[in-house]
């Protein structure tokens, strides 16, 4: 049963990663440069668009928690949670990836999300404030794009290519 849980966690880890980082990369392609949010009142904005944007944001935001929980579970299952988090020996590779992943999750939930609440209208805000917040969410999102490069490399290389190190 525990092996089944481990496989389930690995599967969820990859699925969650695809949803979360896939969304991030799609956003990079759609908006290669920053542009301020449109000068519309959120209350008057197209309801369908706003609902879709809110649902989309919720989906990848919670996907990040699935990735985090399944990743930590797998480390715990393999008995290397402490070794990875303390960057010991061969587990330093995976551990560096884990710390970057933690940083990305914290960036998403504690930097991007509080500001995105105003951009998407979860929290009412004046247009100037929404513009200010949209720039912060853009930079926060791109920071996670940058961090995803080494995170994915260290995770996969740490697990599948120990001879590289």
């Amino acid at each position, binding site marked *: 049963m525990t092996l089944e849980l481990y496989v389930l966690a690995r599967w969820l880890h990859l699925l969650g990663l695809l949803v979360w980082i896939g969304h991030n990369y799609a956003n*990079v392609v759609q908006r*290669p*440069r*920053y542009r*301020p949010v449109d000068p519309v009142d959120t209350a008057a904005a197209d309801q369908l668009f706003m609902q879709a944007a809110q649902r989309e944001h919720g989906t990848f935001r919670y996907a990040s928690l699935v990735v985090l929980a399944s990743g930590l579970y797998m480390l715990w299952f393999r008995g290397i949670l402490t070794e990875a988090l303390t*960057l010991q*020996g*061969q587990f*330093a*590779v995976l551990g*560096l990836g884990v710390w*970057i992943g933690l940083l990305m999750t914290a960036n998403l939930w504690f930097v991007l999300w509080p500001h995105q609440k105003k951009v998407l209208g979860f929290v009412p805000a004046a247009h*100037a404030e929404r*513009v*200010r917040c949209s720039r912060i969410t*853009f*930079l926060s999102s*791109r*920071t996670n*794009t*940058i*961090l*995803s*490069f*080494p995170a994915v*490399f*260290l995770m996969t*290389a*740490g697990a599948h290519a120990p001879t*590289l*190190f």
Partner: protein
Amino acid sequence: MRPPRFRLPHETLGGTVACGLLLTALLYLLARWMV
């Protein structure tokens, strides 16, 4: 709102990819050194 005076590297597609690749290379070397 005035545009920012200068652009940060990750404000463009090329800058984002370049920063990502550079950071990956640096962390690879760091990981090799640690292992």
